[in-house]
């Protein structure tokens, strides 16, 4: 499935908008990772523990959004965006959303 941040699909025509699709997740690492991350906060540099939790949350939210788009019979999602917030300390909340559309390529008639 094509996921685009643009509102148009190059080389194809959007024939139908199926509406908003979104996926949400909140993830965290276990206490041990948070402890190590706290120590890294004292010395600086990349906090891999949190990079990983954000990446996990991003992929999960994206997959959930795709599943919703598939369920609607979409060919693509346009205007795709990620949004993040923190609902609890050391938790990553990621929302992936966009507009599910059906498209027709010129060579498909």
């Amino acid at each position, binding site marked *: 499935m094509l996921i685009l941040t643009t509102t148009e699909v190059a080389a194809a*025509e959007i024939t139908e908008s199926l509406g908003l699709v979104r996926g949400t997740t909140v993830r965290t690492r276990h206490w041990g990772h948070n402890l190590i991350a706290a120590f890294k906060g004292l010395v600086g540099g990349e906090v891999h523990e949190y990079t*990983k939790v954000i990446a996990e949350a991003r992929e999960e939210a994206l997959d959930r959004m795709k599943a919703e788009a598939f369920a609607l019979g979409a060919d693509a999602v346009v205007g795709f965006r990620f949004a993040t917030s923190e609902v609890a300390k050391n938790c990553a909340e990621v929302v992936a959303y966009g507009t599910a559309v059906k498209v027709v390529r010129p060579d498909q008639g």
Partner: protein
Amino acid sequence: MMLDPDNRHPEEPPPGEDELMAMAFADGELGAEEAAAFATRLKSDPALLRLVAEHRALDALARQVGHPEPAEIDWARLKADPTHRGSTVAGWVLLTASALIGAAVASGSFLLDDSVPFPARALAGAGVLGLALLFSAVLRRRLRAIPLDPYRHVQR
């Protein structure tokens, strides 16, 4: 990525309109109408089609020869460093052991302290047991969910 016409060999002629369009098409930079019109042209223009294919192949090649994340190997090496591993393992063992033993001693001394009224000890004991049961339920659920969680291996 549109190729800068000036970023070419001095003897190389500047790219024509078709080449610029082919590059933009290959990179998905054309608008919907423009791309559709260009796609129609491709059907009847083999030379133009070849140009698009060449640019797509160059893109793929550039991605293959491009350096991966430079720190990938270094991170792995640092993580595998014996001193790092040893101090991390020792640190966790000491911390876990002291936390468990400390909690057991503190709970035991409070619950077995006859100077504390029995209702207070019973209440505290029930609270500790409740917390332990809740934690074990969450831990058990997590351990059972780990094999079903496809996102655990996502690194960044």
